[in-house]
């Protein structure tokens, strides 16, 4: 089934088309959800809520952009909603004087990073750091957009990112990856 056929089927509320969309995109989307949530069960809750919204709001998909990107945004929004419900975003703190270079991480360390360790690294971060790190580094949002999404200031978003990278560096060292520059 092509992507266009799946979208048309979903608009017609065809259960087979919905299942096809689910089968094709859940492995990626569950991994996205898991990067934001601390537990597998929470990630699955996010996944179910997000795909329900995908099928419920399929008529609003304009087909001008990427279908996968549209689903991904819904998954990220659902993850943020879950964390907001759990009051996980209240720990955001703002730093006024931080030198970002102090907390930079060597790319060589990341090249050898096992995929399982990515989740382990993120799990050891506070929700605020993790959120901003994911939104900025992985999803590619700007600080202004992150500030709007999380209802925090732009400086708080920047601070959280710097602290997240600092924590990342510490954790990489603990996991045995060389975090030295160069």
């Amino acid at each position: 089934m092509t992507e266009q056929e799946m979208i048309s089927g979903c608009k017609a509320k065809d259960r087979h088309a919905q299942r096809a969309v689910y089968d094709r995109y859940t492995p990626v989307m569950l991994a996205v959800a898991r990067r934001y949530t601390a537990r597998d069960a929470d990630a699955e809750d996010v996944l179910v809520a997000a795909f329900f919204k995908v099928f419920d709001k399929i008529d609003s998909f304009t087909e001008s952009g990427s279908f996968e990107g549209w689903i991904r945004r819904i998954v990220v929004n659902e993850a943020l909603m879950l964390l907001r419900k759990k009051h996980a975003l209240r720990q955001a703190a703002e730093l006024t004087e931080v030198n970002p270079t102090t907390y930079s991480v060597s790319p060589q360390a990341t090249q050898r990073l096992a995929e399982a360790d990515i989740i382990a690294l993120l799990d050891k971060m506070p929700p605020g750091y993790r959120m901003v790190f994911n939104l900025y580094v992985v999803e590619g949002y700007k600080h202004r957009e992150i500030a709007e999404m999380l209802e925090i200031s732009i400086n708080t978003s920047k601070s959280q990112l710097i602290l997240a990278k600092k924590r990342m560096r510490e954790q990489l060292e603990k996991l045995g990856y060389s975090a030295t520059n160069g």
Partner: protein
Amino acid sequence: MATFDPFENEFRQRANGLRRTPSPRAWNRLERRLDRGHGGSGAARIFGIRPWMIAALILLAAGVSVIATFADDQGSPLAQRAQFIEELSTPYTPSEEFVPVEYQNGVPGAVEEVERPENFRDVIVAEKYRS
């Protein structure tokens, strides 16, 4: 678009390569939710009211009214079962022994028991009007 340092680029590529398989239960949960969600759309879903709730309410109201009506009719003669069945196929005909004269003249041999006051007078037609 945000600018990334080499570490961020590398991490992004690694993170985007992650794949996870959901449990079979996840699809069942989603399907149940879809069935519920698509079942009651539009105005019927406002305030969480579902069509089955409305149907149940109507059935309940109808049941209560039927029971109430039935209970009220218990003492009514109209609600009672007919004691006999009227034969409508043959028209009513008086029996051959029926003698209407007996009713006009009273029962033969019976004593007139009507008591009249002392000042009672029958109304009598005046002489000049008698023909």
